[in-house]
């Protein structure tokens, strides 16, 4: 078959000594299922995948290089655009790294507000992911509509607090930008109170659904040993049964004060990854209830924090938190100047994506689509 494009063939015949005649299919970068501009070159033996080569870089927008030329605070809006579903947790991880570098402490109220916003982001991300995953499975429309209905409610909260729906740019070094007023907290409480009912409705549609179970159980299995050796973090790791949640392991912020459980899977397949996220959302609702009930008064910013002329002393720091997708971390090296000498992101979705081939081997192309969906990638973070 002829090459259809100069950038790489869409479909071409290849020959393998072991398998015989194979077909190489290029999926993406424009493909409705690939969650953005991601390309997979899959080699098929009949319908089964024998080789999968991921091709990245279609959204490489020089995040790290730009971070080296921008002031510390100037990089904060760029972190919003890393994983554009979870700007609040990206902000927090970056703030943690800079606070470590500069030795800043954070007031208690700000820590509580950060927890509230991070858990709201987790709800937002996991809800949207479940919707997208079901879209990939083929139930087109309804679950995603339900997910986006809830997303809009959370985004309304984010917008009234930070001024922007998606790109919140809310955290600052040593606190948060604005103090959430009482009516905002009341609205957040209303949302949190109603979220369990939404989850019940969502689960009634999907969790016990025979088609969803047939489609996702036993598909894309990942062993715990493979997940650990590849550095997989987040729900994808916990679906294999490894109890690793930075909220428990590091106990950063005020998380040790809250009572919550870490749900674990047993099979590491697509269904487990879906279930872990649903169960995590239920735990997040519990954390939100506790955080909203226990929110202390006091300042929202450390008075010692400087916004203008911010120059941390020379040194290096790595700050990490448990984002909705896994461990999101920022590594900074300072030489005492207003901008970092080196700025590095540890993107969870990129590292979780590295074992895509291992999960997809032996499955069909249709399964590869839902396996990719269950890994939960956002290309802004994968390619940076």
């Amino acid at each position, binding site marked *: 078959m002829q090459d259809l*494009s*100069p*950038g790489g063939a869409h479909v071409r015949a290849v020959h393998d000594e072991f398998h015989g005649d194979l077909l190489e299919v290029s999926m993406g*970068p*424009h*493909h*409705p299922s690939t969650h*953005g*501009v991601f390309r997979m070159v899959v080699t098929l033996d009949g319908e089964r995948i024998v080789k999968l080569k991921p091709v990245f*870089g*279609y*959204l*490489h*927008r*020089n995040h790290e*290089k*730009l971070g080296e*030329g921008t002031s510390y605070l100037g990089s904060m*809006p*760029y972190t919003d*655009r890393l994983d*554009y*579903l979870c700007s609040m947790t990206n902000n927090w991880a970056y703030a943690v790294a800079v606070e470590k570098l500069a030795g800043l402490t954070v007031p208690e109220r700000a820590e509580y507000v950060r927890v509230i916003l991070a858990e709201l982001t987790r709800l937002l991300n996991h809800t949207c992911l479940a919707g997208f995953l079901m879209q990939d499975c083929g139930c087109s429309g309804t679950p*995603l*509509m339900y997910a*986006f*209905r809830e*997303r*809009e409610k959370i985004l309304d909260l984010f917008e009234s607090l930070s001024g922007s*729906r*998606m*790109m919140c740019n809310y955290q600052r070094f040593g606190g948060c930008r604005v103090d959430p007023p009482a009516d905002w907290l009341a609205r957040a409480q209303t949302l949190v109170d109603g979220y369990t009912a939404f989850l019940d409705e969502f689960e009634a549609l999907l969790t016990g659904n025979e088609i969803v179970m047939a489609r996702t159980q036993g598909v894309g299995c990942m062993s715990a040993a493979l997940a650990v050796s590849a550095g997989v973090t987040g729900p994808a790791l916990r679906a294999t049964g490894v109890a690793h949640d930075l909220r428990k392991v590091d106990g950063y912020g005020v998380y040790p004060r809250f009572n919550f459980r870490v749900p674990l899977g047993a099979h590491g397949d697509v269904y487990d990854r879906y279930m872990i996220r649903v169960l995590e959302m239920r735990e997040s609702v519990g954390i939100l209830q506790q955080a909203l009930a226990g929110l202390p008064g006091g300042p929202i910013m450390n008075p010692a924090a400087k916004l203008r002329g911010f120059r941390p002393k020379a040194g290096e720091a790595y700050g990490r938190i448990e984002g909705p997708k896994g461990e999101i971390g920022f590594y900074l090296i300072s030489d005492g100047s207003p901008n970092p000498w080196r700025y590095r992101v540890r993107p969870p979705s990129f590292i979780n994506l590295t074992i895509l081939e291992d999960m997809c081997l032996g499955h069909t192309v249709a399964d590869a689509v839902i396996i990719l969906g269950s890994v939960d990638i956002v*290309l*802004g973070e994968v390619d940076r």
Partner: protein
Amino acid sequence: MDQIAPTTVPITDAERDELRRHGILLTGLEELYNWGRSRSVWPLNFGLACCAIEMIAASMAKFDIARFGSEVFRPSPRQADLLIVSGTVTKKMAPQVVRLWNQMPEPKFCIAMGACAISGGPFKQGYNVLKGIDRFIPVDIYIPGCPPRPEALLHGLVQLQEKMRGQTISGPDAPRHLRADLDCDCPIPEFGEHDLEPPQNDILFQPPASPVRTPKA
């Protein structure tokens, strides 16, 4: 509305409304054609970056792009007539975007959604970021924002519908695809050694001349 009403119709809008009240519908072929096209714009199901999430949000329950006749997102460029460039176009992605544009059948339209698609946006300084998709394909509507709200996308869509209704189907103002003297295909750039080659489509994009200072008298 007045300035875009087709001038070939010899009666005024008021007269036509009067006739409509009596049950007589008077229209021209051009008007009917444009009305039909503008009310069923099928966008390409194509997301690039952050703006794509807002594009999806615009098609979901709260904003509901179906109210404007554009809910049919087609995954294949062969079936689409609106390309929404929703996000940062990198130099690796630009050839693919232009190829998608060439694969779409005429009449086709392009919306540059968000700061990145317009000019590179916050990532303009980046070595790998295209400084605006209008360097390679003709853009009809620009929607500023980072990302634009779904309402902004809907507004852009309504503006595009206005533009469609103002088009003529014959004469020197006819759109590209109805004119034999114009080539509709955009040349696809290649990823060269330092930059895309060519770095822009010279027919579409002329960089603004640097301002010349006139000495004061």
